[in-house]
């Protein structure tokens, strides 16, 4: 079946602009995660959605970052007033409720100039 998809694959934006990153999880997966990965670094947790529960937003680095998940499926990560330090690869993953095993999308490479 189809895996996790993310769009766009690359995004170049000017400092101060807002950006939206999209994630389509695997059908039937109730959990969805966003991570950030800087060059040569590990994964930085951002936010986690599980079904209809309140999301775990504990990893969001500032109030410029927000995410929503509509209809328990597609998710959008929004970064307002982008800064150069926001440049990174943003990864989305999904999993079934009863497992920790995560399936990742290919990521969106964000470059803030």
């Amino acid at each position, binding site marked *: 079946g189809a895996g996790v998809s993310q769009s766009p694959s690359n995004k170049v934006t000017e400092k101060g602009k807002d950006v939206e990153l999209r994630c389509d999880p695997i059908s039937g997966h109730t959990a969805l995660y966003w991570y950030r990965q800087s060059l040569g670094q590990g994964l930085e947790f951002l936010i986690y959605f599980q079904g209809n529960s309140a999301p775990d937003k504990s990893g969001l680095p500032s109030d410029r970052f927000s995410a929503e998940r509509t209809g328990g499926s597609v998710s959008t990560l929004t970064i307002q007033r982008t800064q150069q330090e926001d440049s990174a690869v943003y990864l989305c993953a999904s999993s079934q409720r009863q497992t920790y*095993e995560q399936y990742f999308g290919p990521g969106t490479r964000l470059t803030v100039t």
Partner: protein
Amino acid sequence: TQLLEQSPQFLSIQEGENLTVYCNSSSVFSSLQWYRQEPGEGPVLLVTVVTGGEVKKLKRLTFQFGDARKDSSLHITAAQPGDTGLYLCAGPVGSTLGRLYFGRGTQLTVWP
């Protein structure tokens, strides 16, 4: 402070050599997972270990979960250039279902 410490951070070896990478923590994990990430792609799950002392083999890769469930290792026999990538360990802590904590990873390069 990183919950999961991985070592070494970088490893560069010749094709045919054996290697071991480590994932350590002071916390107990109910399970640990290993992922491999290739450039330009998302991490891909390799294995999940659940039982203390468990050993799992995936072709030339051998994964071990420590008896106390605080550490894990990945051993690769006769490494090949196709094994090149970032190896990440991850595990859940507490009762927060689905929230995984990732180590910083070991970047492995295998030269032909």
